[in-house]
């Protein structure tokens, strides 16, 4: 059997569960007479998804750009801070306890504040929320990765009289990459959440969060659900982009070997 056929076969159970879930959803609405505003039929969500496409996709694009901006900015800054902290131990000793404490803060609670700090109508306020959400996991994981380099490999490099920079480049960074990508996948999800939730607290009218909230307020639940569907698809797309990049960059890691 070819590799593609085997991969396709691996997807069959998931696809079956997905179809089954839709059937159960559709069936139980009819069977239990569930009100349309509580849970619309999948078919009416899909038709609204199609009919409203000229509103939904531009709104999705706005939100996606905000999420992407926050994702890129927050992740890059996280990697930068981790590099500095990893290089100068004293900075790490001072910052790490604070960073770990900060990680426990529900950052999304700051969304209304960020809207005030930056212009609520500008995408920057949403990027800021997304960015802060992405920053911490990327920073913590990158640092952990940089510190996970094998002492033996470093000793070997020292036997070659390799400089610290060479050890960093040839041992620490490659060791850290799988850790970094794990956190980037987490961050890609957080970025969409940050952007949408940020928009719930106000934003340009042409954005998913605002659209979902306003449609729900006027009882157009199919459209609200269709908005959620767009947000989900974009979130999955961002996640998939990171996962595909990981496959190309981290070709050697055990978990990406066969799957």
């Amino acid at each position, binding site marked *: 059997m070819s590799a593609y056929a085997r991969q396709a076969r691996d997807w069959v159970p998931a696809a079956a569960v997905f179809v089954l879930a839709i059937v159960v959803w559709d069936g139980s609405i009819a069977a239990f007479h569930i009100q349309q505003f509580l849970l619309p039929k999948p078919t009416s969500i899909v038709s609204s998804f199609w009919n409203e496409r000229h509103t939904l996709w531009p709104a999705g694009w706005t939100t996606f750009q905000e999420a992407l901006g926050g994702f890129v900015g927050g992740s890059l800054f996280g990697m930068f801070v981790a590099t500095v902290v990893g290089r100068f131990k004293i900075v790490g000793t001072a910052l790490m306890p604070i960073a770990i404490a900060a990680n426990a803060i529900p950052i999304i609670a700051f969304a209304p504040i960020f809207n005030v700090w930056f212009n609520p109508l500008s995408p920057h306020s949403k990027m800021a929320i997304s960015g802060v959400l992405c920053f911490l996991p990327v920073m913590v994981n990158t640092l952990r990765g940089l510190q996970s380099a*094998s002492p*033996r*490999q470093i*000793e*070997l*490099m*020292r*036997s*070659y*009289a*390799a400089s610290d920079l*060479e050890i960093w480049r*040839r*041992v620490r960074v*490659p060791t850290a990459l799988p850790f970094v990508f794990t956190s980037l996948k987490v961050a890609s999800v957080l970025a969409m959440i940050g952007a949408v939730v940020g928009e719930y607290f106000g934003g340009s009218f042409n954005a998913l969060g605002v659209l979902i909230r306003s449609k729900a307020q006027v009882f157009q639940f199919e459209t609200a659900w269709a908005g959620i569907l767009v947000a989900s698809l974009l979130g999955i797309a961002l996640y998939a982009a990171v996962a595909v990049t990981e496959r190309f960059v981290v*070709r*050697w*890691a*055990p978990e990406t*070997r066969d799957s």
Partner: protein
Amino acid sequence: MSAEHGTPERSVVEIKSLTKTFPRGHVTALQEIDLDLRAGEFVSLIGPSGCGKSTLLRVIGDLIEPTAGSVTVNGKTAKRARADHDYGIVFQDAVLFDWRSVSKNIGLPLELLGWDRARRKARVEEMLELVELTSFADHNPWQLSGGMQQRVAIARALAFEPALLLMDEPFGALDEMTRERLNLELLSIWQQLRSTVVFVTHSISEAVFLSTRVVVMSPRPGRIAGIVDVDLPYPRTVETREAPRYFELVTQVRELLRSRGEHLLPEEEAALAE
């Protein structure tokens, strides 16, 4: 042949009253070690755990600084010798880089030396031939067996033709069959390249089979208990392990280990008796 031990040749490693204490726990790992290794020798360091044999190897390689005494490698300080790439090192595990193919692992020290691509490629091919892994050049390290990985590590350590090869229990994690085969391979490589080898092991039979000299060490504090000259002729073969002289020498090493073995823990005693 370089194996003509005893002839007064150039010293590759000179160790004078070397002492190493670790501040934590005030452990004296090495006390007043004097040792002189001549070019082309194959010297094994053997002893129970805690005798400082691995520490001694690392001091020679300037990976650990001595507390007192001096180490000279190729007539230079150990630090200078490390900077000049005068030695290659092999550890108990192969320490291969997963993100590099077999060839790129072997070429790593050459990259650090700034060799250009063509020169690297040619040398890596030579080394692959030497350890008989030519057909595995583009494999990933994790696709290789333990014995093959260790052969890659040896090829990498020898790629830049260092005068000295330091080996820290390189075959300790391998099964007996693989170990004996690699012993033979290592001897043939050594005879081809005529480098000097310092070989840390806890196997008496391996030490006697490979070496021109066996340095027996005793623990707490780490000291040289005695040195056994191995006068078995090269090339050594499977038959060498059955020669009466081989057994005499094995017994000699074992008795040296025993005579200073009053500090041995029971499990160390058992390990040496194998």
